[in-house]
């Protein structure tokens, strides 16, 4: 089977074939190696590659795989090559559009740091919310214009409530 994988900014072609009981021949962009990969838990694997031993956790949702190797997290997007060929390359497009910025937990708005119409960079602070005993700065996920501010300082917000809309 062949997959197109995305890790960070880079894309890779990953071919895999089970050649024996949980033994795999894997090739990454043509670079071939053999993996002895045992499933040792619901999301846990023991991999031995060239006698190097790795304990891996793989969480999976849809085409996204979060792989934990040696304390480091690898976020891999993996799709069947056949699916890519018929066109599946639009997944990144939404991130540029209109976005609702929210917080997952209820809290109290301490300060609003922007005004409607402001142009903000990616990572620019929008609102400070106190929740779980801490003050948290909610930042802009993208470079955008502030379209609508839905809260003001002193207000209490529910978990998931929209704070700001940016575009």
């Amino acid at each position: 089977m062949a997959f197109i994988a995305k890790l960070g900014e880079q894309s890779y072609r990953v071919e895999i074939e089970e050649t024996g009981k949980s033994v795999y021949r894997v090739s990454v962009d043509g670079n071939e190696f053999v993996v002895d990969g045992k499933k040792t838990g619901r999301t846990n694997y023991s991999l031995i590659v060239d006698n190097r031993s790795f304990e891996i956790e793989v969480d999976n949702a849809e085409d996204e795989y979060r792989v934990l190797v040696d304390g480091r997290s690898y976020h891999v997007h993996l799709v069947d090559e056949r699916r890519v060929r018929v066109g599946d390359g639009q997944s990144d497009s939404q991130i540029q559009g209109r976005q609702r910025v929210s917080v997952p937990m209820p809290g109290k708005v301490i300060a609003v740091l922007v005004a409607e119409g402001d142009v903000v960079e990616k990572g620019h602070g929008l609102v400070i919310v106190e929740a779980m005993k801490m003050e948290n700065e909610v930042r802009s996920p993208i470079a955008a214009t502030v379209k609508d501010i839905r809260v003001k300082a002193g207000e209490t917000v529910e978990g998931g409530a929209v704070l700001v809309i940016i575009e």
Partner: protein
Amino acid sequence: MLRRILIANRGEIAVRITRACRELDIETVAVYSEADRESLHVKYADHAYPIGPAPSAQSYLSIDRIIGVAKKSRAEAIHPGYGFLAENAGFAQRCKDEGIVFIGPSSQVIDQMGDKVKARQIMKAAGVPVVPGSDGILNSEQEVLQTAEAVGYPFMLKAVAGGGGKGLRLVRAQREVPSAFRAVRSEAASSFADPRLYVEKFIERPRHVEIQILADKYGRVIHLYDRERSIQRRHQKVLEESPAPGLDDRTRRRIGRIAIQGTRAVGYVGAGTLEFLLDQEKKFYFLEMNTRLQVEHAVTERVVGIDLVKAQIEVAAGGYLPWRQRHITQTGHAIECRIYAEDPENDFMPYPGRIEGLRLPEGMGLRNDCGVYEGAEVPIYYDPMIAKLITWGENRVEAILRMRRALREYQVRGIKTNIAFNQWILRHPRFMSGDFSTSFIDEEYRRISKDEVYPHKEIALASAAIAALHREHERTMGLLTKKANEPSQWRDQGKRDSLRAAGPRRGWKR
């Protein structure tokens, strides 16, 4: 001895107190808010009582409800843990009035030490050095300016009732006084309903050292040596150790003696902590006294070998402290890392949710104080600290290397944590050499780089592909075996569904 204790707290500290009680053959009474019915501290306790809705103000902070449960459950004593009502003088007084043993000092002492200006005055009178500053309360910009003349710039303008990094401003020059005065006064009024202010000299790049105290009702006071908790982020403590790397032995002995002096002056009973700032000339200044167990008490327990919770209980029950100062020695070195449900890649935003997977590190020299379990929900209402990990070593280097090894074994899935951030601290050369102050993280930490470094790129890609293959294979197998054993499959599936239905399932993509 006490036979039944109510624990007016939740999370890891409630579990930790339950364990101590169990080792003393004392029954425990847990209280829980609506958000905590399935929390670990409820499962571990002998008795459990609901105390109201999720917000703390209506549950863990509700004195009436907690006293009500204490009476109903016939608990003879209440252990407040830390946070919530632990430093609430009114609660301590109420316990006393109701004939319930409060495991902590008297309400008078809590009151005195809670008022930063009064605490300064008492300590100063007892010969404990305090940070130079105002002798009393400052009521006007004018008074602040006058005090500033004597103390010198820069200084800190602070609210008497302040705490947790709120109600204070650094003032570097005279022209900053008016705006700082207005800001702190209004913060103090709105956050603490107490507009009183005072001034303290600003100590440059201080280290934060504290002394653990134990005192019984019969006048015996001992100190259990020092801890350092200079590694903090926005006044949130991250990592603590004992002994304090910032102290030499002479200063260590002096600060211990002086802490006992201060404790006696207050008439303290129980376990408490005196916090000091240590300046770059190794001069130390009393900062405040915490009249309760500290989060980081475990590092002291490990190096001196005394169970502080048991000591608290014995003192509260009227027992004599069995130790004299000469019995107390520090052996080796202990470090504590706090494990927070938070996202270090997103400005340390709290990250509540369901813990899908949990594996604690084990082996020599480790202690896990963990308040959650696999499948537990980290509620959105409370502190995001879910666990503590303490390592011990023959010396500081071994304790650090062991902590690194342990953090490598630590796995929390379903939520994000600061485990990698802790590793970053432990690998930092300045931390290794002990050369740091409270501003260490601000000075050194740039957000954990998103320039992706992928030392095991091939392994990760192969793992994802194997998992994908498994998924594919299982889907096929499932469809094939479907008919054969339908009922039992559905049974197991249903079980899992109902488990998930117990709380919102949180994906890792946010």
